[in-house]
C-alpha cells in the first residue's frame, strides 16, 4: 500500500503534466490545480500511513524495481520523517503556486503548468529516492523544467538568468555524481557487487573508505549541494534567477528547490563522509557565517523587493547550514525545522511580491510604497510573513533559527557539556548579527513598501482610486498583461492562497513539538557517526594523517583499496 503511494507520488504529477500538455489551454490551470491538490492528498495519505515517524527509519521497505540489475540501479522509493516533511512541504506549496499563477500567466499556459507538474515529480523523486542514481536523476531533472520556466516566463533578463541557473547547478551536481560513483565503484571492488542504495553507500563510505578518500568525497558531494543551497560564495545564480523567474517559479525555487541542496547534505554528504564533515566543519561554518552577514548587508542596499528577498534566502540558508554543521541534535533539528519554515515564509513573501508585481509591474521599492493605504489586506499578510521571516517568536521562523544558533553556540569542543561539535559561541555570536541585520533589511522593506506615504508608479495613481480600470503602459512584462482584472487589494483567490500559509506559520510557531519530535530521531541516525569523529578530531587535531589514523576499527579491517 505505502509503496504504491510512493510510486503514485511520482507518477501522478507526470500524468498530470501529460494531461495538461494535451488538454485545451483554458483547462490547463484547473487540471494543474486539481492535479496538485490530488498529489497533496496522496502525500497526506502517505504521511498518515507512514509507520516510522518516531524512529527515524525508512519506509516503505521493499526491494523496488531493478532498472539496471547489472549495475545495481534500482527504482526503490522510500523516505524517513525528514524527507516526508519536505514531501509534504512540496505538495503543499505546489497547489498554492498553481493558483497563484492564474492571473499572472496568460500565454503558453499548457507548457507552463505542464512544466510545473514535471518539476513537482522531480522534486518528489529526490525526496523519495533511496537509490543514488534515482536521486541524481531526479535532482538533475529539476533543472530542465526550471530552466524553461525561467527562460520562457521570466523577466527581461530571463535568458541570462536561466543559463546561469542551469550552468551553476549542473556543474556542481556533476561533481556530486562523480563522488557518488566513486563510492559505488569502491564498494563494487570491495564486495564484488554494484549497488547504489543510499544507505549502503553511506555505510560503506563512512566505515570502509580511508579518511583521505572521505575528505575528497565530501568535497565532491558538497560541490553540487552547496550550489543548490545556495552557499556563499556560489550563491550568485540565485538572486538573478529569483529576480527573473515568474512568481510561482520563485515560490517553488525558494520553497523547495533550495531544500534539495540542504536535503542532499543531510541525506548523503553528512552520513557518507563523516571525516570530511568533521575536517571541513569549521571552514564550512566560516562560509556560513560570512554568507549570513554578506547577504544580509547586500539585502540592506537593495531597491528591488524581490531581489531583497532572494538575497535574504542566501542569508537564511546560511543559518540552516550552520545549524546542520553544528553536528549536534539541537542544531541539526533546528536546521531541518528551518528548511521547512523558510519554505513557508519565503514562499509566501514571494507570493506577496508577485501580487503587487501583477498590479504595478514593478518591484522597485523606490517607485512603490505606502501600500497599506491602498492594500490593507495585502499589507497584513506582507507584515505577517515578514515577521515570520525575521524570526519573531510565536511564528514558525523563530524555532529553527533559535535552535540553529543554539546548536552552533553549544558546539564548542572543549566544553564539558556533552554537545559534540567544533563550533562555539563565537560562531553563533557573529551569525547572530544576522538577526539584527535581518530586522534591519526586512523592516526597511516594510517601511518602504507597506508604510509611509502612498507612492505608485506613474499612470497608476489616479485611475486606481476606484480600484479598477487602470490602463497600463506599453512596457509590459512578459505574460502578465491582464492586471486590470485585479482589484486594488487582494481578491478572494489571492487571500485564499495566503491564508493556509499564514495558518501554518502560526500553528508551527505555537506548537512545533510534533515536528521536532519526528525530526530528532532522523537527525540522531544521520549524525550517529559524528560524536566519535569529533572527539578524535578534538584529541588529535586532524583526522587526515594517513591510513593509520583512519577511524578506529576501520583501518584494521580495510586494506588499502588503491
Amino acid at each position: 500500500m505505502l509503496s504504491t503511494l510512493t510510486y503514485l507520488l511520482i507518477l501522478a504529477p507526470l500524468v498530470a503534466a501529460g494531461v495538461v500538455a494535451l488538454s485545451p489551454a483554458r483547462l490547463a490551470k484547473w487540471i494543474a490545480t486539481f492535479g496538485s491538490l490530488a498529489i497533496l492528498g496522496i502525500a497526506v495519505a502517505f504521511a498518515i500511513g507512514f509507520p516510522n515517524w518516531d524512529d527515524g527509519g525508512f519506509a516503505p521497505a521493499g526491494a523496488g524495481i531493478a532498472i539496471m540489475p547489472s549495475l545495481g540501479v534500482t527504482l526503490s522509493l522510500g523516505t524517513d520523517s525528514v524527507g516526508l516533511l519536505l514531501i509534504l512541504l512540496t505538495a503543499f506549496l505546489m497547489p498554492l503556486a498553481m493558483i497563484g499563477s492564474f492571473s499572472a500567466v496568460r500565454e503558453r499556459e499548457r507548457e507552463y503548468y505542464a512544466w510545473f507538474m514535471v518539476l513537482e515529480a522531480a522534486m518528489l523523486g529526490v525526496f523519495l529516492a533511496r537509490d543514488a542514481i534515482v536521486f541524481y536523476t531526479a535532482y538533475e531533472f529539476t533543472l530542465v523544467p526550471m530552466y524553461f520556466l525561467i527562460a520562457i516566463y521570466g523577466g527581461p533578463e530571463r535568458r541570462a538568468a536561466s543559463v546561469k541557473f542551469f550552468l551553476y547547478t549542473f556543474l556542481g551536481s556533476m561533481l556530486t555524481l562523480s563522488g557518488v560513483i566513486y563510492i559505488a565503484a569502491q564498494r563494487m571492488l570491495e564486495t564484488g557487487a554494484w549497488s547504489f542504495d543510499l544507505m549502503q553507500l553511506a555505510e560503506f563510505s563512512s566505515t570502509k573508505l580511508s579518511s583521505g578518500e572521505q575528505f575528497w568525497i565530501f568535497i565532491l558531494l558538497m560541490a553540487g549541494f552547496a550550489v543548490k543551497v545556495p552557499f556563499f560564495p556560489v550563491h550568485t545564480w540565485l538572486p538573478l534567477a529569483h529576480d527573473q523567474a515568474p512568481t510561482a517559479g520563485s515560490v517553488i525555487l525558494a520553497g523547495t528547490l533550495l531544500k534539495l541542496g540542504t536535503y542532499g547534505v543531510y541525506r548523503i554528504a553528512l552520513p557518507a563522509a563523516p571525516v570530511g564533515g568533521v575536517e571541513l566543519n569549521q571552514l564550512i561554518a566560516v562560509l556560513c557565517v560570512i554568507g549570513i552577514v554578506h547577504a544580509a548587508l547586500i539585502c540592506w542596499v537593495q531597491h528591488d523587493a524581490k531581489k531583497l528577498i532572494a538575497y535574504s534566502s542566501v542569508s537564511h540558508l546560511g543559518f540552516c547550514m550552520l545549524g546542520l554543521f553544528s553536528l549536534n541534535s539541537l542544531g541539526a533539528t533546528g536546521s531541518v525545522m528551518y528548511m521547512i519554515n523558510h519554505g513557508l515564509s519565503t514562499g509566501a513573501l514571494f507570493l506577496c511580491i508577485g501580487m503587487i508585481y501583477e498590479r504595478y509591474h514593478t518591484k522597485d521599492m523606490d517607485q512603490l510604497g505606502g501600500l497599506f493605504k491602498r492594500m490593507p489586506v495585502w499589507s497584513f499578510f506582507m507584515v505577517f510573513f515578514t515577521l515570520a521571516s525575521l524570526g519573531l517568536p510565536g511564528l514558525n521562523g523563530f524555532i529553527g533559527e533559535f535552535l540553529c544558533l543554539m546548536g552552533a553556540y553549544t558546539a564548542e569542543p572543549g566544553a564539558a557539556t556533552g554537545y559534540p561539535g567544533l563550533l562555539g559561541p563565537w560562531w553563533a555570536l557573529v551569525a547572530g548579527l544576522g538577526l539584527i541585520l535581518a530586522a534591519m533589511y526586512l523592516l526597511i522593506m516594510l517601511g518602504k513598501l507597506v508604510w509611509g506615504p502612498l507612492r505608485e508608479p506613474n499612470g497608476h495613481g489616479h485611475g486606481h482610486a476606484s480600484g479598477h480600470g487602470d490602463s497600463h503602459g506599453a512596457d509590459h512584462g512578459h505574460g502578465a498583461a491582464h492586471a486590470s482584472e485585479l482589484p486594488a487589494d487582494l481578491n478572494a483567490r489571492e487571500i485564499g492562497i495566503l491564508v493556509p500559509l499564514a495558518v501554518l506559520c502560526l500553528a508551527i510557531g505555537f506548537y512545533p513539538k510534533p515536528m521536532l519530535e519526528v525530526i530528532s530521531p532522523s537527525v540522531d541516525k544521520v549524525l550517529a557517526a559524528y560524536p566519535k569523529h569529533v572527539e578524535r578530531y578534538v584529541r588529535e587535531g586532524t583526522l587526515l594523517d594517513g591510513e593509520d589514523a583512519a577511524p578506529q576499527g576501520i583501518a584494521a579491517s580495510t586494506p588499502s583499496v588503491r
Partner: protein
Amino acid sequence: MHELARSLTQSFPTLLGADEPASIARAIEGADLGWAGLILIFPAVSAILCGLCAILKVKGKLPGAITAVSLLAAFVVTFLLYWNCPTDAPRTIHLFDWISFDWLTGPGAEPSAWRAFSAPFALYIDSLTLLWMLFVTGLGTLIAIYATEYMEGDVGKGYARFFGSVSIFLFAMGSLVMGGNLILLYLGWEGVGLASYLLIGYHYSKPSAVAAAKKAFIMNRIGDLGLALAIFLIWWNYDTVSYDALFAAVAAEPAAGASEWSKAAIPFCLMLGAFGKSAQIPLYVWLPDAMEGPTPVSALIHAATMVTAGLYLIARLFPLFELHPLALPTVAWIGCATALLAATIGMAQYDIKRVMAYSTVSQLGYMFLGLGVGTTFGAVYHVFTHAFFKALLFLCCGAIMHGMAGQLDLRKMSGLRNVPGFRIISWTFLVGCLCLAGFPFTAGFFSKDSIIAEAFVSDVPGASALGFLALFTAFLTAYYTFRVWFRVCGGPVKYEPGDEIHGHGDDDHGHDHGHDHGHDHGHGQAHGHGHGHGHGHSHGHGEWHPHGPRLAINGVLLLICVGALLAAVPSYLQMSGQPNWVQTMVTNSSAIAGASGHHGADGSHALSFTGIEDVHKATSVVASVVGVGGILVALFFHLLNRGAADRLRAALLSNGLTRWLPLLMENKWYVDEAYHIVVRAPARGIGHLLYLIDKLFIDGFVVNGAARVPAEVGRLFQPLYNGALQGYAATMAGGVALIAAWIFWVWLSGG
C-alpha cells in the same frame, strides 16, 4: 453599555471552553491554578476579535470595548490569582508543551544518554510576577478605557488596528512576565517589541513615525541578541532554560558547566538585553523617538510597562548577576549615567512628550542604579510608583494634545489650569509632576530615596559618587518637570493649536503635512493650514477652541492620579512599623538575593555631614531640599520670570566657553548622529561594496569566466549547435565520459 455586553458575550465561550482542551489546561503542578492561563487568553482573544472587527470593517467603538473588557477580565483574574496563590513560594503552571524534544546522542563515543530540550508554555507565578502583572493589567485596563475616547477620531479606520495591537502587547507582556522559562520570556520580549513597532508606526503614512518604529525594533533587536546569547549561555552551563531548575542549579553551584568565562558572561549578555528594552546607554535612543506613537501607547508601553521589562529581567534573574563581581556595579554605573544624561537632554526639550520620554529614560536609569547597588526592593518600588505617575503624566500630555489639536510645544501653551475643560488635567498633572520631582511624601519621593540611600551605602566602587550624581539628577528632574508644569499650566492663558497629528475625522491623518509651524502662527491660522486638504473637521470654521476631555479621559486621569497617590501608602505603613507590601512581594521572589543588601563595611556614609546617622533619613532630608530647590528654580525661570530663561540661554550661547552646553543638550548630545556616522553609514557602505563585489567579481569574473570553459568545450564537440542548453548537454556527455574513464582507471589500478 450595549457594546460592552456584546463583547462580553463574545469572550464568554472562550472562558467556558478554556479549561476543556487537555493541551491547554494540563497542569503538572498547581493543577488548580490552570485558569491563570486566562490572563494570557483574554488579550489573545481580544486581539483576534479586534482583527475580526477590522475585517468586518466595524464602524464603532466595539474594538475598544472588547479590549477594555478583556483587559479588565485579565486584571480580575490576576487579582484572583494574587488572592488565591500563596506568595511565599513560586509555582510553575504548565499549560502546554511548546518547544520540546529529546535526542539520543550522548557525549563522547557512547550514544546512550537521552537528552532533552524543553521550553513548555508554562507560567511561573511568584510574588514578583504578581506584582508586575497587577500593575500591567491594571494600568492596561485604565489606559485602554482612556484610549477608547482618545482614539475616537479613528473609529472605523485605525481603531481596530490600534486596539488589536494593544491586545497583542498585553499578551506578549503577560508571556514575558509570567513565562516559566527563558524561551517564553524571549517570546514576550520580542512580542512586546512587535506591539511597540506596530503602535509607534500607528500613523503609518507619516515618515517620521515609520522611521521611529523601525528604529525602536532594530535597537531592541540588538538587545534581543544579547538576551538570546545569554539564553544560550545559560542552557550551556545549566542545561535548562526553566526558572525553577535554573535557580536550583545556580544555588547548588554545580561543578559542571561549560567554562568559567561563559558563566561570567551571562550577566553581561543579559544586561545588553535589558538595556535595549529599557532604553539605557548605549541603546536608549529609540525611546524618545517612540513618542511618535499615540499617547496612550506612550503611557502604557513606553513609560509604565514595556520599558520596565529590562528591570524585570534583572530582578528575576538576580542570582545570575552575582556570577561576576563587576556585573552589578556595571548596572549601577550605566543606570546612573543614563539618568544624568537623559535628564540633561530633558531639560532642553520643548516638546512636552519628549521631556516626559527623556524623564522616563532617566527614571529607568534610577531603577537600574537601584538594582546595581543591590536594592531590588527600591528598584521595583520605583518601577511600581513610576508606572502610576508616569502613566498619569503621559495621559495628561495626551489629553492636552487631544484638546489642543496636537499641540505639544510648551512655548505655545500657557495657563491651561484656567482654561475650561482643562482643570482636571492641570491638577492631576500637578500630582504627577510632584511625584516625578520627588516632592516630599509623595510616592516618587519614597521610592527614589530608597534607591539613592542604598547607593550611598553600597559596596559598589564609587558608591558616594553614584549617590551624589543621583541627587544632582534628582535636582535636574525636579527642575525640568516643573518647567513643563509652570509653562503649560501656570501663567497667563495663551495657546495655539497644533497640526492635528492624531487626526479628528481626518481621513488622511498623519499625512506628510510638509509644513513647519513657525513661532509667529496666529490663532486658528495653523488650523486652516492643517486642513488645506479639505477634509471634514468637527471643529469647523473660524475661531479655534480647545476642547476639554470627556468622561473616559477625565475619569481615568482621576483614577490613576489616586493610584499614584496611593502608591505611597506602603511607605507610610512602613513608617508606622508595618511591613512594606512591595518589599514583601520582592523579598519572596527570586530577587531576594538583592534585598539582603550589599552594604559597605561600616555604617558611615557620605551624607554624614547632615548630622543624621541613618542613611535613609539623611537622604530623605537632602533629597527633599534638592527636589524643592529644583522646583523653586523652575518657578523662577518658568513662571515668575519667563524671560530670564531665554536670556540665560542666549547668554550661554553667546559665550564661546559655554556654548557647547545648551547646544549639546538641545541636540541630544549628537548621539543619533554619532551612531549614524560610526555604525550605520559604514555598514551600509560595506553593503554596497559587497553587492558590487557580488555582481562584478564573483559573478562576472569567477563564475562567468569559469562558465565560458565548458561552453567552449561544448562548442568544440557540437559545432552545429550553439544554443546554451545544447552546450550543457555536451558538457554533460563529456563529464560522464570523464567520470567513466576515471572509474575505469580506478578499477584498473585497484583490481
